[in-house]
């Protein structure tokens, strides 16, 4: 474990912040001013005393060694996690040896670190034991699964009926019917315990107001929903992997049953999307040894940052196991063999033509796939009317940006980074275009996040 002493970059620290306000408050505390007795140990602990508004300084300690991301402890009353003091301390630590020298932890910090590590070890042991005893009553579990499948089948049948009614009366009616109709149907899918279908149905409701060309998009999405319904109804006759894709797309929880793959996994991108109830975090990983790409999904209640936070540019020496179906893109992080450490490696890339072909091939295993993760080796952002495209540096082909990517500030960071010269870009390539997530300039330089 040679990476232990490596300090994170400030960007990586700031990516841990639960929200923008914490990020701001944390950066202000990232100066030597309010801190005293700060230090860090070789085992990956960082501690310090932060002067607040009260007379007694806050005791802040962070354990960076944990494989599941940093753990925090602060005597401040904040309910943010990590609090601004922890962020400020880590920023100070990222700035170097001067502000946070190496040393031995004081008692108050050491107690917490030792206690925590003991608890995690115990939990891990218990978890291993629990997994073994989890299948205690396979009979009952099977009965539960069967009942749920029946409910979903009932929901799917109802949904098929709705779609048939819609097509009989014409999509033009859907424009008048508005959002309510779809909300009602979506609620029905939630009752049927098919959250994947519910989300798709809700998505249909937004299409009629999405601008020119909506009938085409609505027909496409209705057709794919119909395809999914039919896939569910015939799941017993499908090849096993495709059946698993249908199950996970419909919304049945799977478990990461693939064999664990140990590799040095580079964090390519991390971004959150939020709706009214849920924040979804997506983390793209790239196995530097295996060349595989995997997606870690994490969920948090609305307004709360999901765990873990894995800043771009870190490398984790860890096991990763894939979920069944959908091209085995989704993975779960397993055991980690060391703390995440910054690295300057970048994935090898492909041309735009290869990227779009890759999407086409992936549709074979998962026809509902919106996009695939791809690194474009050398592309130039080029204006294309009121949008942009990424053009191969040495070929005459290009990928358009998705409408969503056009509106993001990351687009301009990408254009500025390129300056008309080729850059390496990681992103999601799908039928609506390319969404850039991370970019690397031509020369040896760290990744720039675009999302």
């Amino acid at each position, binding site marked *: 474990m040679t990476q232990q002493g490596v300090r994170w970059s*400030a*960007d990586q620290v700031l990516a841990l912040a639960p*929200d*923008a*306000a914490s990020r*701001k408050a944390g*950066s*202000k*505390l990232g*100066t*030597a001013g309010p801190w005293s007795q700060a230090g860090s140990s070789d085992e990956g602990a960082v501690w310090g005393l932060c002067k607040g*508004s009260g007379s007694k300084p806050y005791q802040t300690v962070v354990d960076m060694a944990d494989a599941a991301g940093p753990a925090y402890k602060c005597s401040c009353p904040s309910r943010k996690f990590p609090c601004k003091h922890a962020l400020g301390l880590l920023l100070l630590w*990222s*700035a170097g040896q001067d502000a946070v020298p190496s040393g031995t932890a004081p008692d108050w910090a050491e107690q917490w670190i030792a206690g925590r590590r003991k608890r995690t070890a115990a939990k891990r042991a218990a978890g291993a034991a629990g997994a073994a005893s989890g299948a205690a009553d396979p009979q009952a579990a099977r009965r539960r699964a069967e009942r749920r499948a029946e409910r979903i089948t009932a929901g799917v049948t109802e949904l098929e009926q709705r*779609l*048939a009614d819609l*097509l*009989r009366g*014409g*999509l*033009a009616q859907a424009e008048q019917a508005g959002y309510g109709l779809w909300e009602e149907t979506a609620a029905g899918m939630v009752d049927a315990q098919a959250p994947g279908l519910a989300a798709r149905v809700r998505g249909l409701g937004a299409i009629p107001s999405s601008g020119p060309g909506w*009938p085409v998009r*609505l*027909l*496409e999405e*209705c*057709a*794919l929903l*119909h*395809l999914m319904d039919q896939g569910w109804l015939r799941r017993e006759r499908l090849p096993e992997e495709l059946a698993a894709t249908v199950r996970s797309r419909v919304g049945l929880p799977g478990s990461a049953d693939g064999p664990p793959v140990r590799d040095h996994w580079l964090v390519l991108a991390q971004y959150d999307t939020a709706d009214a109830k849920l924040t979804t975090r997506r983390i793209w990983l790239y196995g530097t040894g295996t060349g595989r790409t995997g997606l870690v999904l994490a969920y948090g209640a609305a307004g709360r940052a999901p765990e873990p936070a894995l800043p771009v540019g870190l490398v984790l020496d860890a096991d990763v196991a894939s979920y069944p179906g959908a091209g085995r893109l989704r993975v779960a992080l397993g055991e980690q063999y060391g703390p995440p450490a910054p690295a300057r490696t970048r994935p090898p890339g492909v041309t*735009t033509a290869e*990227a*779009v072909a890759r*999407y*086409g091939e992936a*549709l074979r295993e998962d*026809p509902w796939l919106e996009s695939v993760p791809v690194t474009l080796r050398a592309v*130039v952002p*080029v*204006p294309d009317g009121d949008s942009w*495209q990424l053009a*191969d540096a040495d*070929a*005459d*082909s*290009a*990928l*358009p940006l998705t409408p969503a990517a056009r509106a993001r500030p990351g687009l*301009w*960071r990408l*254009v*500025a980074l*390129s*300056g*008309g*010269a080729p850059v390496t870009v990681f992103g999601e390539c799908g*039928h609506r*275009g390319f969404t850039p997530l991370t970019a690397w*300039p031509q020369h040896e330089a760290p990744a*720039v996040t675009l999302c």
Partner: protein
Amino acid sequence: MMRTSAPVAAPGPGAWEELVTTALLGTDRRALPAGVPGGRAPSALLDAAAVDTVRRRAGLRAAPARERPEPAPEDPRPALPEAAARRLAMLLADRPGAGGGGRRGTAPDLIELLPQWLAMANAHGYAAPPETLPALLDAARARTDLRPAALAFAGPRALWLARLNPDWRFALRAAPGGSAALPGPEDTDRIRQLWEEGLFAERVALLAAIRSRRPAAARELLAATWATERAEDRLMFLDSLRTGLGPDDEPFLEQALTDRSRNVRATAAELLSALPGSALAARMAERAAACVAVDPLRGTPTLVVEAPHACDPGMERDGVVPKAPAGRGERSWWLGQLLEAAPLGTWSARLGGRTPQEIVALPVADDWQGELHAAWCRAAVRQKDAQWARALLGTPAAPEAGGPGALSLAERAKLLGTLGAAERAEWVAGFIAAHGLSEAFQLLGVCAVPWAAPLGRAVVDALNIARDAGSYPWSFSGVMGLAERCLDPAEANRLDGLLAVPDEPEDASPGAGGYWAEAFQRLVTTLRLRSAMAEELRGG
């Protein structure tokens, strides 16, 4: 968008459009082309649409590339040290409206440090990290005071970027050279062409650029087309001669005194009066001298003032505005203009060989003192006469310096501007020591950053006194904010004693002690941050 590959086994061209049309109208109204029985029609339509959708998605091809933009010009400056680049990202992230707000607490106000950071980075000659350019341009767009430094730091790539985004057009206007690079000084043909055919903004920029390097060439350029320019343009062009104004400009300005436009005439007169050796200055000196004299008949020497009785055509030609603003007597209005334009150097000989100090100290008969000193004050500022400025400012501790004396704070601030940085700081320090902070804000604003040691100490002492007096710190938030930005970071250690919450005296405002400790903590934190910023930029 992306194009679809040529369909291999497609069910005929237009089949997808057929499906969409049928779907829009409904299968009840329009039969499926393949003639599927009515009851199964919706399902069959969706089957066909699903196949077609997946087929088209799987067959997508990359689009032809559009015309690539010209690559951005090289930026030869060295890259920022890593720590400084991180700091910049933090300063730029702290934009107003980015959350927070409300009470300031003990944390520094990062956005207020951006101008300083930019100035230091520019002094080191670093290049901006490309990915920060959008944020830099946005910051410069929001705050015009940041523009020159931000755009200089952002460099050539930012202008390249600004051409691609209409939000950043301002950068092309504001940048030296604007949209098209300015021709070099030797490229006389292009200069002449741009001058004769360029847009007004381009011409102003061109004239200003040439004037700053070769004043005479700019004047000749202007003189060549002077007669054909529009009045408002003449005014703007004339104004750019302010830079590098010298005796050589006199003939041209003298000729502009007969201009058709009154504003042009007034500006020409103002510029001429800033040249003490000009003929206009001599004429003004003669007129002004007739109005002010030492009364020989009184016991103590006293200045007597006799304002002009008329504004003759000669005065008008020399830029005196005949019509007084409402509420002012026209004779004192004319007097003020004469005194302002007359070279200050002539007064000593005229008033018995006295020094400026002695002249200012003379009593003035009949309530003319305010008028007289105010006019001399404007003259000292216009002619950048430090000796007279010093005399008019007087000693900072003098009682009238703080009171409603003859000179306003704004006038004092302008007079201070004519003094050297050290002298300015010393005078303001003396002023604060004698009169406290309540009126010091404007004066502090003209002092050089970082504040010289005596000035810094005077401010800290005065803040300390204000705290002990029991008032709240936000009565001094303006000065506090200035101190955070301008105090020498080396002073931070001297402030340690002020960080604790003091025992509250009985007559103090409740809780004030805590707020003061907080304000001083913020001051110290900001000073430390500034010294860290400077250190990072040094690459240490």
